[in-house]
């Protein structure tokens, strides 16, 4: 993976190889879209953020430090864009308030749950909706930490690099997010 990514980036930088960039988009689009979707809770906005993240990555590729992981840099652009957008919107998140405009998993969001039986699928969908809704209620700083830790399965260190936070702060954000989710989970 790393060797492939390095080769693609080199081709883009040196020859402006757009096919190489398309390959890079293909490699990371699901993850970038997923972060954007979990952060914004909205498939339309997630697409918009994901697209902008890739365009910015393309335009600023010269500033990417090749000694570091490309995904860290790309996810950083993505989470920054999400947080900027959430800031511009009315803060409809809080630890208690009901969130509006949170879409279920419909439209473009595709689930890989074909292996489940129909009834199990319904339960799975409801659970999915619950998780999505509750994550969307978290303040953005806890939200991003929880998404990167438990949905993207990244290490504390990587999350710290992406969010530009010290490890201990990342941990605190994860603990607080986890605790807020736990309190709500008890009631269902």
């Amino acid at each position, binding site marked *: 993976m790393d060797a492939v990514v390095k080769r693609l980036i080199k081709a883009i930088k040196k020859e402006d190889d757009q096919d190489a960039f398309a390959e890079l988009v293909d490699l990371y689009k*699901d993850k970038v879209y997923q972060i954007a979707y979990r952060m914004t809770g909205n498939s339309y906005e997630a697409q918009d953020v994901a697209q902008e993240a890739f365009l910015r990555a393309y335009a600023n590729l010269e500033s990417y430090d090749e000694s570091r992981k490309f995904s860290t840099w790309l996810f950083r652009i993505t989470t920054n864009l999400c947080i900027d957008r959430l800031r511009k919107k009315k803060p409809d998140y809080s630890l208690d308030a009901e969130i509006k405009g949170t879409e279920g998993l419909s439209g473009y969001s595709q689930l890989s*749950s074909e292996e489940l039986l129909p009834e199990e699928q319904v339960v799975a969908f409801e659970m999915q909706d619950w*998780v999505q809704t509750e994550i969307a209620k978290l303040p953005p700083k806890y939200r991003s930490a929880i998404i990167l830790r438990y949905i993207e399965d990244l290490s504390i260190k990587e999350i710290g690099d992406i969010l530009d936070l010290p490890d201990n702060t990342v941990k605190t954000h994860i603990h607080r997010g986890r605790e807020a989710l736990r309190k709500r989970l008890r009631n269902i």
Partner: protein
Amino acid sequence: MACQKKEEKQIDQYLDGELSAAERKELFAHFEKCPACAAHYRELNKTVMFVQSTSHLEAPPRMTDQIMQNLPSRKKKPGWRKWGRRHPIMAAAAIFVLLMSSSMMSIWNDQSAGQIAVAGGENVEVDHEHGKVIVPEGEVVRGDLMVRNGEVEVHGEIQGDLTVINGEPYLASAGHVAGDIEDVDQALEWMWYYTKKFTTEAFTWNTEE
């Protein structure tokens, strides 16, 4: 809620994978006699499992195409025009560089990126196979020499500056460069590309319209 701050902290550490075996043993021994802490741990653990079980989403099927259509493009004209509108300063900078470089005698021997490009040296040798530009011994380049995408071996003399973009200058013991030797980095490289693209686009404006 865990019964004490200490336990609460330990549960967090345990979930973060940061407890030693001994501490873990101690914590689970505490759960045996403290239902509150045991429940707190169970609930947190369940929360994590729920979040982790969230299905992985896939990007919309046409996303790559849409992104690629919005890139500043090398081949399609609307691409650079749009780029020029969106980045007027860079476009102006590109034109500036273009004007600067066209004051030299420019011989771009190949328009495709990655190929060696030489500007200013009439009598230099271009070795495409090895990606080298050679100023032969006894040869004198009277002005500046600029080479892109290639090594430059100077055995002769350059009376002006030597600029190597995306390559390596090499000065042989007999070679001589009167001016500065510059090894240009990636930042200019990017602008350079746009200059070149602009040149190509500008010159094919009428024929392709």
